[in-house]
């Protein structure tokens, strides 16, 4: 089988190997690590931007990576029908690059937060989410300092395709369930094609049952099955 997924590694990415391992554990397919300068459109149907601190998160999280040539290649990859998954710093890069709307500011508490959160799935009209049901609550860990999502039209998400929101265990999207001050409790976004998905939580940290619910694994399997269907 040809290569299904690649993980784009920037200087400072630090969840790159984790995503590749988790992808393999969840799907049995390997996701190859590709140094950012080696990435080009068409390498694989799915391109993953991993978490971490690309370029040290200096200036703003994701800002410098978003202006690198790899991101031009990523735009082309998407135009050619490719899928893009941005996790945490990857999500920040996608917004900085304008591939997803909005931006991130510091967590409301002003410091890094590493914890488990509950998320309500808002829609499943995307290859990344076809295994999930709208309204379903899943749990995944977050680990970020600049995770408060901000959108220009902060109103009830006009023009945004919100895929995941921070919620309580019972699926209530409430201020108490919001760990970082994200507007509208936004934790994950889709672009209009549904083929770009950015999320702040780390599915790779919850893909192996040894770490808990394994909901992250479902996300990778969902993505892979879409790839093989269209492939």
């Amino acid at each position: 089988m040809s290569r299904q997924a690649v993980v784009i590694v920037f200087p400072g990415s630090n969840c790159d190997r984790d995503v590749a391992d988790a992808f393999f554990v969840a799907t049995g397919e390997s996701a190859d690590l590709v140094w950012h300068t080696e990435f080009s459109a068409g390498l694989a149907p799915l391109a993953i931007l991993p978490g971490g601190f690309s370029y040290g998160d200096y200036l703003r999280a994701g800002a410098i990576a978003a202006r690198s040539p790899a991101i031009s290649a990523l735009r082309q990859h998407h135009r050619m029908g490719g899928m893009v998954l941005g996790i945490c710093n990857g999500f920040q890069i996608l917004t900085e690059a304008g591939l997803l709307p909005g931006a991130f500011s510091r967590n409301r508490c002003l410091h890094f937060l590493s914890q488990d959160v509950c998320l309500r799935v808002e829609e499943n009209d995307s290859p990344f989410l076809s295994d999930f049901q709208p309204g379903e609550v899943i749990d995944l860990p977050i680990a970020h300092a600049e995770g408060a999502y901000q959108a220009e039209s902060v109103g009830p998400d006009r023009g945004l395709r919100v895929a995941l929101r921070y919620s309580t265990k019972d699926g209530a999207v409430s201020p108490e369930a919001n760990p970082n001050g994200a507007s509208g409790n936004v934790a994950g976004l889709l672009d209009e094609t549904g083929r770009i998905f950015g999320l702040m939580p780390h599915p790779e940290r919850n893909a192996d049952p040894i770490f808990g619910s394994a909901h992250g694994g479902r996300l990778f399997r969902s993505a892979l099955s879409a790839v093989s269907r269209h492939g």
Partner: protein
Amino acid sequence: MAEPQVGAKRAELDLSRRLEAALGRAAAGTEAAMVSVMWSEHCSYGHSKLALRQFPVKGPRVRVGPGENAGVVDIGHGHLVAAKIESHNHPSAVEPVEGAATGLGGIMRDVLATGARPIAFLDALFFGPPGAAADERLAQGVVEGVARYGNAVGIPTVGGEVTVDPAYARSPLVNAMCVGLLPEHHLLPSTAKTVGELVVLLGATTGRDGIAGASFASRDTSQDLGDRPQVQVGDPFRGKLVIEAVQVLVERGLLTALGDLGAAGITSAAAEMAQRGQRGMRLDLGRVPLREAAMTPAEILLSESQERMLLVVRPKDLPEVLAVAQHFALAAAPIGEVTAKAQLTALLGSEVVADLPVELLTEGAELFDLHDRAKPADARRERRPASLSAWAERRLRGFSLADRRQVFQRYDDRVGLRTTRLPGTGAAWVRIPEASATLALTVDSRPFLTAGMPRQAGRELVLEGIRNVAATGARPIAFTDCLNFGDPDQPEVAWSFLETVGGMAEAASAMGVPVIGGNVSFYNGDQARPMLPTPVLGTVGLLADGGRRPAPNRSLGPLWLALLGERTPLGDPWALPCPDYAVEADMVEAMIELLDQPWSRALDDVGDGGLWQAVMEQALRLDAGGRFETPDGHGDGLEAWCAEGGSRYLLTTDDPAAASEWAARRGVPCTLLGQAAGDEITCADRQGPLWRSPLSSLRDAARQPFWR
């Protein structure tokens, strides 16, 4: 902090006289600067080296003991684990964020230098209580620094310790431990052996930052560095690139030796690598990639710029090494070569700016036997409290129950996908599927005990580390220690240092667990406020579980607490019983068996704060109170609840009958304390309740913030 001018002048004179005697000529200024930093306490261990020789350092698993970078132990299946702990107290007191950050960076490079990939950090932190703005700033800054470096460099911080006491006001202690993993064939010596091989500096460029930081921590130079900031800045981004570059170099077999640059910069790394191989090095300072203009040779040789490593490579491999560095956008340059004659020679252009025997640098410092000056301190023993209530209320007001989550929630505790038991309860688990195993990691300290009875505290600290990992099912395989003390020239400090080391060494030897490395930090606190002697111990435990043991389940259903093990009653809760090492060792095995039993829901060791503390922590975790009663045979009720010491564990079980039966069969003393239920907690003995409290007071104690 500086000594009186006169003292410094005298020290300088001494130094030049000794140098002249050794060299047969007057030393050049650069040479004197190098020697003065290398002979500082921080680099030479002049006051501690002799005492540290008591530690057991050998064992079937030990591959690298103390003296090199990090210690290295064999965990089987062709894999090794490197571990070391280090202090960054003085820099953190000046600039907490960067002080703590560079502390993590420094210890990370120590582990990296063995050829390992760093896989975990732990941090032991000691602060003054909240309320004073300066202390809150220090506490918050230190935690921010640990988070900033550890999170960005992609190494999880999986455990640690927080101690809050006025003794640490204005003088916080920051100890960081790093653990690394490597396949056997990646192990690198920190030894320059082969004449003609090249010495390459890799990583960040060299600037003026942190010059004389080492001697600054030793208080024996009072160099005037003017307005220059004496602060090193950590760059975790570059640190991460250094990790990745070194991994590639190691995997491709391009290095013959590797060292990290810490205190005393190039001088120390070069001299120590040369010394171990009985070789010399010839360095061309003109080739060092510099960040600032017009740096003097001494500045280049002693700069403590962060994120740098010293590589030894075969000449034919140089182009490939430089290419790897370039790939990661790191500065790299061959700055010299290994020479046959054991001299460290530094040139600038064609001018020799320093030419010193390697041994003079590394071994020339005077060693002091602290026995000569030690004088027993009056035992600062706490008085026996009037009642358990008085004692418990005092502890509730202190910070022993304050939720440590406010600290470790700021740390990425799981990047790397290895942390199977997160910070929060006892030792952390870091899985090593490569070796079909899991590591149990913990850091511990007992400053209050150490202040009163250092020898017993030293023993107890070692046993606590062992019990901590045993309570998660692991056998201890190695220790690394960081000894934070005051001024060793003070007789009482010298005494408590020697006593502590003696106690630790005795217990570690008796338990057959080697000390594979460590660090000594003297001159903490100041005259006005002597600090608590604070030995910190890092323990590495090993579980042969295939690396697949899931974290313990959240317990459901009714649960009971039971005390396992016994403490010889002494009638004085503040005198530690003399350890019975055979019992300790047997209890470790028993606890490992116990954790496989279906009725075992949680296990904690009984340590600081005795049974009371262990029960309160568990009540908080279960969010349930209960009436817990100690029977006869544990001294009086007061002692049963608050005495420390002895090989004791607190079991949480859903089947007390089965637990008792197992314990009887296994020969483990077992006392059922009571069922966890309700929102009031009562500590009792046979005569009746000794202390009772609503659960909400425990929750309040847990909510106490370390800063506002």
